[in-house]
């Protein structure tokens, strides 16, 4: 009886130690930040931090969708928000970290350090750079009541079978930022008007009551749409090349895709390529979408008079999507010719993209790591950004067509 009493007492005492007493927090008092934007302003306080969280997102009025705080650091901004809002900020489900164009040209490491001071930071959140400001991007109201944070994340997740870009997480970004001989590459996105033509027409008409059309709003939206109409979609427009914690160059989407090809990360990407005119294979159309099914990129290095000479051997297995010629590709000669032409085009474009990246001093291809491993006695991490600019490149590409479609020739009316 005495022992039972003691056990009961022990249980009662232990129950007071349960952590709920200290850390219990009703969910309505938690603010789960789903997207965070960082912008840089020339005048102090320099940082403009934009916060998106689901409760805000539910209010459809545009002015309530995002909250922006100006402060001297991201940490200060989040602390101010925490104090004024009365909610406990959590970065546990952060989907995307959006860096504004100007902020990306400043050192980003203080931002990363501030975020890492939050123990629940989701390191799997994607890092993207936006054309313009992060505030603009996070103010986009995606169609069909999608949440912008989810929309941004799925934009990179749906890179499979689309002409987009692979994602880069905070963790990967940090490793690339810190390690000598490698740099980060992140997707470059931009708000666009809308992908819905009818909606674009309505918006343009609303913006220009006198009947004049606003430029760039419709037809797939290139550009930023009309000023009066809210942006409704986001598009990957290329990639940002980092050197340490600063962006040094941006690439267009085709350039970025050839860099991904050189990195061996273009598996399942769809690449739009232009072919030189050729009477045999491209009598009508010289642009073609290639679906990359398997990409192997082998880099080798040779030092010639202390100048690095890199050779890339690309082996690509792909499928054709919109071949518009009328040549029978089931014949070995024809398919071999096309494979050779594809190989040539991939080689030329990849070489140009790689040379452009190397000229910036950034190293998303991790060529410095190859140098470190292969020539440790010549490896100088501090000098690498200068050294890579003098590097010489050779690309050898081999393409293998896996799928040409079910039909041998184009289906069209015969003798009609």
């Amino acid at each position, binding site marked *: 009886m005495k022992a039972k009493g003691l056990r009961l007492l*022990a249980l009662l005492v*232990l129950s007071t*130690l349960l*952590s709920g*007493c*200290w*850390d219990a927090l009703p969910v309505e008092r938690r603010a789960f930040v789903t997207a965070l934007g960082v912008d840089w302003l020339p005048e102090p306080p320099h940082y403009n931090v934009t916060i998106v969280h689901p409760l805000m997102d539910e209010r459809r009025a545009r002015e309530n969708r995002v909250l922006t705080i100006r402060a001297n650091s991201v940490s200060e901004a989040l602390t101010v928000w925490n104090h004024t809002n009365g909610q406990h900020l959590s970065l*546990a*489900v952060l989907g995307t970290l959006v860096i504004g164009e100007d902020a990306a040209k400043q050192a980003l490491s203080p931002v990363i350090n501030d975020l890492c001071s939050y*123990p*629940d930071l*989701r*390191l*799997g959140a994607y890092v993207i750079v936006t054309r313009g400001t992060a505030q603009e991007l996070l103010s986009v109201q995606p169609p069909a009541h999608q949440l912008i944070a989810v929309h941004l994340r799925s934009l990179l997740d749906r890179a499979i079978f689309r002409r987009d870009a692979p994602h880069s*997480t905070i*963790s*990967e970004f*940090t*490793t690339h930022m*810190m*390690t*000598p001989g*490698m740099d980060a590459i992140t997707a470059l996105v931009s708000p666009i008007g809308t992908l819905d033509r009818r909606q674009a027409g309505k918006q343009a008409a609303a913006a220009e009551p006198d009947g004049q059309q606003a430029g760039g709003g419709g037809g797939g939206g290139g550009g930023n749409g009309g000023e009066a109409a809210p942006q409704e979609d986001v598009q990957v427009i290329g990639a940002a090349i980092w050197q340490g914690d600063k962006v040094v160059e941006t690439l267009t989407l085709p350039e970025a895709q050839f860099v991904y090809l050189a990195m061996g990360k273009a598996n399942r990407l769809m690449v739009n390529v232009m072919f030189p005119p050729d009477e045999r294979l491209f009598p009508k159309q010289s642009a073609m979408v290639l679906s990359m099914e398997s990409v192997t990129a082998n880099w080798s290095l040779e030092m010639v008079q202390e100048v690095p000479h890199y050779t890339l051997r690309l082996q690509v297995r792909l499928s054709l999507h919109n071949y518009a010629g009328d040549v029978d590709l089931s014949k070995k000669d024809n398919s071999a010719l096309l494979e050779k032409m594809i190989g040539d085009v991939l080689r030329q474009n990849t070489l140009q993209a790689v040379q452009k990246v190397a000229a910036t001093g950034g190293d998303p291809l*991790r060529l410095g*790591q*190859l140098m470190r*491993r292969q020539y*440790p006695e010549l490896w100088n991490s501090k000098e690498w950004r200068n050294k890579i600019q003098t590097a010489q490149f050779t690309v050898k590409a081999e393409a293998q067509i896996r799928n040409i479609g079910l039909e041998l020739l184009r289906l069209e009316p015969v003798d009609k």
Partner: protein
Amino acid sequence: MHTRVCVTGFQHGMLIVGALIANGIFSLPRVAAEEAGRSAWVAVAGAGFAVLLVALLSNRLASLFPGEDPAGWSTKLMGPLLGRIWLLLYLVKSCFFTILTMRIFAAIITNRMLTHTPSTVFATIILVLSVLATLAGISGLARFAEVSVMLWLPLLTLLAVPLLGGHLYHLRPVFGDADISGFLAGAKAAAYSYAGFDILLFSYPHLQKPRESIRAVLWSVGLVTAVYTLTTVAGIAFFGLDHLTRLLVPTLVMLSIAETSVIERFDSLALFMWIGMVVVTSGTQLYMGTRLIQGLLPRASFKRTAVFLGSFLLIASWGETPLRELIALADLFGTFDLSFVTLSAVILLPLGLLAARGRRLG
């Protein structure tokens, strides 16, 4: 103390695994890589091999005194004075180990998950559970270790995420990145992670089939070495050296990166599941501490001593200590622990063999 034969060979091995794996694995990739660079995983594997040799020596030492643990044979082997000094040193080591185990785990939970709860709360919970496990005796501890290790093993599959997402070039060159002194320093830095296997000295007398002990020592230390080596490989491959050496607890960071559509924060789940392993480690140390006090004071009751020791350790370590300081202290302690156990095995084994030979001749 009456020795009850109640532990199977498998439980003996699980007890060693449970005693070895606790908090050290959280910081192991960093502390090893800070010293041995890219060769850190080789240093960790090397340290595991060295620990296996010491464990086999300890096993041989234990086999010389069937039916008795160090609390019983130390004074017989070394004489009353030296024996008691050795017991006292051993007791201090066990007490420090218990305190470090509970405080580090409590500080990790407070730092990463429940930031408003004082770490003393978690330390208290771990210590109370450890005392309860100790009161269940070596057989209860062994059964608890079995369950805890089985629950913990599936977490190992999460290592596949950083391994697949990492880059093997971070691991190259395997040798040449650090000199031999760096390699040895890396192995030494892994000492804290390998501390605790000396529980085999205390569970050996309770084995149903003592001949199974060698096999249990081989597979348990081998398993732990493989886990530690794999964790270090994953840490280096995923983060690279420069990032890895700036993370206080890289293993937990790796776990936080593993995401599925259902569970996004595996590190939180892992920490809760890890509590069993931590209780096994602190429980084994508390058990050893209790038995060592009984060696010093033969008339002391086991249960009362265990409760008293647990209460004393809780009060002695009351307060909040920063995690960084605790981990630095643990690194120092690990070297002391492994040196003590190694020296004890190396010195006492010949003495024990001589004593056994004397007994046979006598």
